[in-house]
């Protein structure tokens, strides 16, 4: 079945996620959709699968325009999707998950025909060499196995177009190879496969055609014979790099020392952070680069104490931070700008003034002997709002009504209001407009110049290049290397996308 997307456009408010995207996928081919995080790939697929309504453009199957009101329609038309975040019920068995929604029943009581479901699972499983036990409980399966269950689920509905959304993000190298083999088999059996990914090695290994998306637009198509460097540069772009006016850093003594830090996911028991060690000196900015999901978030959170590390030590100016309360660590001089500002950064229903003192409310001069002084709080708010150019109607406005950029400024203002030894900022300019980005960058440099050790976590290469004095690239929970910002983008892109790392691992 031939799939075509014509001029698909999708907006969320003022943000254009997909901008006039064209895509053609012939049956029996693997079409890779390549792009960074936030490029718009997943949105596009959600539109195709009927989870979103497109604002413009059309979908054609076998040259016929189709409209999907929901996933049910899409599935009935033969489109199957393996989501990045699995849509599997953890407490059901494989067979139950596969049959959900189109169950076969038997007998007068219309009970589930589990045997038929098991048969179906086994049949598809054998066809592709999956080795999946239909009666296994999904939550007990490895991530790779769960993914295979998702594929079986799609195939059991006779999918003729199969969309795989970042399938290898959660797989080990061996599992990745197995998956690529499966994709090949699917292609050979006539299925049209759309592979959404940012991993260059896989794209080159399996794709027949490659479309590169960046910032919601198609920026080019390529053949798998293109070099990794070419692909990487298409993907990350040759934007005019954001230049920030900054003097050279004059780093002082080592301020932050991280040794062998390890964080483990409780449920899957996978090492999210694997023996990470590095040092940051006062007055320098270390940018932690890498594609999201490689352990950067956990690194930032483990230093503060938001997540518990199982091993390792973190010292700030000589004081051991591990095992202490978040409060104590903040008091030791850490400023923390969390990655998810709405969830962890601000209380949306609090006023701007109150969010500005969220971790200061019980210190002088904001409060004395347990009583908050509203006058001091509001004067502080006026000052900060002015200093940080927070666009708000008043300091008593609800923080939730501010734009993302302004909310981030509130968080920043709050953290920078204290005397800091270490500033940790995770994705500090995500979702911000250009003006706010500039502002935030300037303030971060200012902190550095005061002698504060700064750790920035960012998946935006532009930002990394603009701010960093040193860059640590993370991949699979480890630091691949710490390099200088003179490193060229292509090398950087390769390190981030696993090419460099994979070669090392394969060795």
């Amino acid at each position, binding site marked *: 079945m031939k799939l075509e997307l014509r001029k698909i456009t999708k907006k969320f408010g*003022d943000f254009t996620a997909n901008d006039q995207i064209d895509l053609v996928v012939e049956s029996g081919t693997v079409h890779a959709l390549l792009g960074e995080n936030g490029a718009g790939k997943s949105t596009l697929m959600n539109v195709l699968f009927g989870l979103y309504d497109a604002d413009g453009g059309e979908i054609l199957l076998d040259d016929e325009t189709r409209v999907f009101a929901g996933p049910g329609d899409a599935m009935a038309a033969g489109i199957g999707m393996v989501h990045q975040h699995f849509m599997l019920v953890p407490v059901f068995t494989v067979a139950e998950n596969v049959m959900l929604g189109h169950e076969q029943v038997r007998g007068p009581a219309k009970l589930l025909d589990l045997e038929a479901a098991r048969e179906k699972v086994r049949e598809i499983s054998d066809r592709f060499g999956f080795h999946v036990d239909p009666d296994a409980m999904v939550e007990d399966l490895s991530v790779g196995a769960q993914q295979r269950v998702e594929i079986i689920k799609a195939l059991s509905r006779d999918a003729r177009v199969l969309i795989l959304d970042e399938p290898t993000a959660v797989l080990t190298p061996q599992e990745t190879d197995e998956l690529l083999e499966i994709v090949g088999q699917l292609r050979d059996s006539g299925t049209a496969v759309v592979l959404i990914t940012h991993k260059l090695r896989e794209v080159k290994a399996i794709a027949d055609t490659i479309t590169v998306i960046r910032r919601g637009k198609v920026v080019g198509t390529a053949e798998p014979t293109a070099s990794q460097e070419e692909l990487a540069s298409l993907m990350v772009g040759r934007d005019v790099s954001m230049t920030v006016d900054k003097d050279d850093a004059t780093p002082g003594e080592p301020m932050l020392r991280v040794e062998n830090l390890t964080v483990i996911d409780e449920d899957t028991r996978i090492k999210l952070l694997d023996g990470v060690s590095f040092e940051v000196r006062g007055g320098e900015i270390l940018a932690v680069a890498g594609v999201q999901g490689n352990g950067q978030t956990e690194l930032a959170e483990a230093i503060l104490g938001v997540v518990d590390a199982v091993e390792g030590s973190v010292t700030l100016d000589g004081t051991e931070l591990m095992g202490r309360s978040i409060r104590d660590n903040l008091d030791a001089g850490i400023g923390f700008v969390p990655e998810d500002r709405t969830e962890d950064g601000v209380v*949306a229903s609090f006023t701007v003034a109150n969010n500005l003192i969220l*971790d200061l409310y019980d210190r002088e001069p904001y409060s004395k002997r347990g009583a908050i002084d509203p006058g001091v709080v509001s004067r502080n708010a006026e000052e900060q709002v002015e200093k940080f150019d927070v666009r708000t*109607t008043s300091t008593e406005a*609800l923080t939730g009504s501010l734009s993302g950029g302004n909310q981030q400024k509130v968080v920043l203002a709050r953290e920078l209001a204290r005397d800091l030894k270490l500033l940790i900022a995770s994705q500090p300019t995500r979702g911000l407009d250009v003006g706010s980005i500039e502002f935030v960058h300037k303030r971060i440099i200012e902190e550095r110049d005061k002698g504060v050790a700064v750790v920035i976590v960012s998946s935006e290469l532009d930002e990394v290049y603009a701010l960093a004095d040193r860059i640590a690239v993370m991949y699979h929970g480890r630091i691949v290397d710490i390099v200088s910002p003179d490193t060229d983008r292509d090398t950087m892109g390769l390190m981030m996308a696993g090419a460099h790392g994979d070669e090392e691992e394969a060795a």
Partner: protein
Amino acid sequence: MSGEEKGGAAEERTPNEPEAASPADPETAPEPPRADAPGDPGADSGSRSRTVLREILESSTLVVIMAIVASLAIGGLLIVFADEDVREAATYFFSRPADTFQAMGDALGGAYSAMFSGAVLNFNANDFSGVIKPFTQTLTQATPLIFAGLGLGIGFRAGLFNIGAQGQLLIGATLGAYVGFAWHLPWGIHLLVAIVGCALGGAIWGFIPGFLKARTGAHEVIVTIMLNYIALNLVAWLLTLDAFQREGSDNPITPIVDETAQYPLLLGSDFNLHWGFVLALACAAGVWWLMERSTLGFEFRAVGANPHAARTAGMNVTKAYILVMVIAGALAGLAGSAPVLGTEKVLTTATAGSLGFDAITVALLGRSRPLGTVMAAILFGGLRASGPTLQVQAGLPVDIVFVIQALIVLFIAAPPLVRSIFRLPAPAHEKEVAA
């Protein structure tokens, strides 16, 4: 029910998380904050262009009023339906419809006037004190509701569903009553110690679910409901002990609390209103200060609104939960002081009555804010006070009051429902009282 399993770090996953059952405010989810709209006009410039009328129509105060109206209307329907005369006249409706309407009018008129003269002013009384007595009764009935409603309100704002006011009240009343009749302290001190006893009893009963939630993640809704019944049985048993019974009697009723431990009357012996009412108002002020001005209250509100951000900002969420439950329990215990040290002056198994559950409706109607709670308590206190008069004058059981109460709260909980009934416009974005 969602019982948290993750042991010590009783962090709630967001609903579903099983964060499910503890939103900050047990009302409808407010419209999502327009976080990513750059150049948001915001409240001020918006209201410049809106007319005052529009603002009134969109206000949540109007919703509250209309909810009350709707509930009274439905209550009226019930009254009419239950009235013997109306049903009799209805059997021959088609031959003499006027009779039915007459009977309906009589029934409704009788009911509403009984409510008024039972709760507000009684114009049939002989003297001035008789005329205003109903209102004083309303305030008297409101007293325990204020206390308990305040406690529940704190809990709700901190994201905790404390359904245990009934049990906390009872245990508080028990301890306070015991101090009142078993100890004999001089005037002034005795009352104080008894009041403290009430608060202490409630605090202990509130500590248990708070502690369990902090340590084991046990969901406070279930624990508090269970503790209500445990308290009931515990007190029932205590009342079989000699220490709690009157001399020479086997009845499950305590001796009368010493005079030195009773709340003095506020307006003289013609009225039942006692100083507990003043204490309740003082507590309301105190709770206001706690929640709006104190660092502790700031923590409570932050934890209730967004436990993740609170934690990232260094607040100790589990400690907050325990403290909230202790304070809420103490306030509920103080509610128990109203019957045992104020109106009844004895303890029986019926002392708590339905106060605990009424307090929930008071807190919900009052939006968990002290001022709202006081007003809601007065409203519901009035409904309760009108009970005897409804019975005597209009022949209606006091249960109609509970029906109206529950209906009001149901309507309040679903503003869109009220709006659609009365064709009120929905606001552009729901304004929450700023924390």
